């Protein structure tokens, strides 16, 4: 944060700013000193903001035409697709937008894992981010229920039944969630209400996420603390805004590719069959972005155990800043951790793949191996590697490796001999 006090040039601006310092905030956001070495992995924050706004705008429009009733919901979605002017476009943007949102958030999270952005002093940013991620999953799940197709209905049945695994009060909680004795009209109605609410909760958390970010400032690919402002930083505008805008354009091309050429490839065809409480589809799968967790759930042959493990897989991320014992943030300087990082990436992708396959034979074996590694990575690998690893020398500043032009900076700080 630049310390110099901002003064609006115009008299009216000054009058207003004295009463509500919005212009000071605007100046802070414009001048905000940003590390000059941010790469394209750092553009996903902006992309995610775009995704959220896209979902809110298209969602508000869809809600003008959608009817949240078990007898009418499916028909109203088809009405949007066939009768409403550009309804097909708006719905396809909204449904594919959810997938694009998750694609971006996964890249954003793995960026943080690679460059150690979750570590001190950025733990609170990380935790708020995870809360956003949890709300995103809730919103996406409830949104998927709204068209009231077969996958909507049975997805809702399976997910709400997860709560019935809770000892003693499980069944009461499930009935309470449903508002009926099965997934039914009351369930659809409340899911619509909550689906509309959650994006605004996310918006509030995004403000906190950015606020918490602006206290220590951005991490960067080298992962070292930098002086702000200094020769290691550039103002957010125009340097970062133009880079974000370029990345966003590329992202929008991919997004548009899905919307216009394969709008249903990420969905499931069974969801174009109206919900039928008497027939379960032969093969229930959640949306792709939930598959790794689904694989973990199914890898355990016990109901309560599976549910506990699945929720643990998410909640373990909350204590990650304290499981990682390494003082070096960026994996660029962590030769051992870097390899485990890529194993984790492959592990999560594999879990996603087996989550889409039937839970039997080799897929079940792979799911179990993948689940075990997932937890080992966080519980064992992260603390132990942090202690034992001999890290590479890290540079004194961002400018240094550039100016001295080598990977062997003469002034390199030696952090490898036990931090």
């Amino acid at each position: 944060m630049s310390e110099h006090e901002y003064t609006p040039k115009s008299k009216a601006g000054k009058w207003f700013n004295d009463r509500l310092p919005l212009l000071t905030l605007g100046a802070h956001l414009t001048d905000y000193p940003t590390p000059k070495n941010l790469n394209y992995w750092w553009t996903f924050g902006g992309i995610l903001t775009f995704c959220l706004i896209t979902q809110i705008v298209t969602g508000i429009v869809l809600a003008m035409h959608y009817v949240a009733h078990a007898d009418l919901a499916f028909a109203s979605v088809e009405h949007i697709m066939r009768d409403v002017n550009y309804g097909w476009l708006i719905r396809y943007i909204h449904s594919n937008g959810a997938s694009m949102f998750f694609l971006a958030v996964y890249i954003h999270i793995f960026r943080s894992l690679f460059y150690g952005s979750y570590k001190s002093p950025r733990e609170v940013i990380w935790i708020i981010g995870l809360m956003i991620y949890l709300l995103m999953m809730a919103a996406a799940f409830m949104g998927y229920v709204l068209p009231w197709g077969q996958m909507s209905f049975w997805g809702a049945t399976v997910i709400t039944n997860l709560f019935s695994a809770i000892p003693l009060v499980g069944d009461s909680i499930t009935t309470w969630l449903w508002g009926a004795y099965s997934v039914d009209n009351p369930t659809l109605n409340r899911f619509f209400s909550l689906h509309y609410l959650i994006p605004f909760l996310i918006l509030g958390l995004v403000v906190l996420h950015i606020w918490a970010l602006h206290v220590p400032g951005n991490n960067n690919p080298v992962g070292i603390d930098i002086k702000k402002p200094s020769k290691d930083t550039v103002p957010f505008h125009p340097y970062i805004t133009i880079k974000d805008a370029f990345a966003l354009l590329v992202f929008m091309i991919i997004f548009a590719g899905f919307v216009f050429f394969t709008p249903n490839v990420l969905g499931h065809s069974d969801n174009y069959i109206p919900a039928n409480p008497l027939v379960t589809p032969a093969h229930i799968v959640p949306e792709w972005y939930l598959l790794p967790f689904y694989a973990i759930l199914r890898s355990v042959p016990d109901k309560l155990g599976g549910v506990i493990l699945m929720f643990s897989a998410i909640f373990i991320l909350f204590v990650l800043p304290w499981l990682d014992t390494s003082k070096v943030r960026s994996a660029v300087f962590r030769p051992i951790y870097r390899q485990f990082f890529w194993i984790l990436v492959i592990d999560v992708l594999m879990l996603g793949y087996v989550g889409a396959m039937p839970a039997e034979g080799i897929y079940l074996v792979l799911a179990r191996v993948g689940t075990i590694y997932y937890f080992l990575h966080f519980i064992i690998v992260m603390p132990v590697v942090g202690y034992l690893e001999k890290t590479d020398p890290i540079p004194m500043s961002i400018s240094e490796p550039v100016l001295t032009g080598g990977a062997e900076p003469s002034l390199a700080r030696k952090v490898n001999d036990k931090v």
Partner: protein
Amino acid sequence: MSKEEKKVKRRDFLFTASYTVGAVGVGAVIWPMIDQMNPDKAQQALATTEVDISNIDPGKSITVLWRGKPVFLKRRTPEEIAEARAVNMDDLPDPQKDEDRVKVGKDEWLVMLGVCTHLGCVPLKDKGDFNGWFCPCHGSHYDVSGRIRKGPAPTNMEIPKFEFVDSNTIKIG
């Protein structure tokens, strides 16, 4: 000095009393907000269903909807009943005698919720390793008495409250 001490105590009492009344008030407001999500009167009114069973031949079954959930009504053959009763209790993850899952004297009628006790899918009939039902979602196998034999489901399929109104009619609920 003692006067001041007394004052402090009096204030403490007021604080505690205020917090208590406040907490009760908040609770009184929150409870209706929570309870409104429980099944309403209209949902509860759907609590019973009567089913005509005169057209079901031995070995066949029908599925009816009760409280939004499928109920299987199966008229079992003597062989199937014998098979269900021959099972060793030690082989059952959730031990329950077949006799306890049907009405006395109406042994051929198995009436149960067609809901997998794992995560609520509808199992498929005449499938699985135990000549009963098989849930396609996560691979639970049920026997001819609807008892869990293999897979992630923790308990047998549930027997709802039901009664024979007459020899051709069953009332569920």
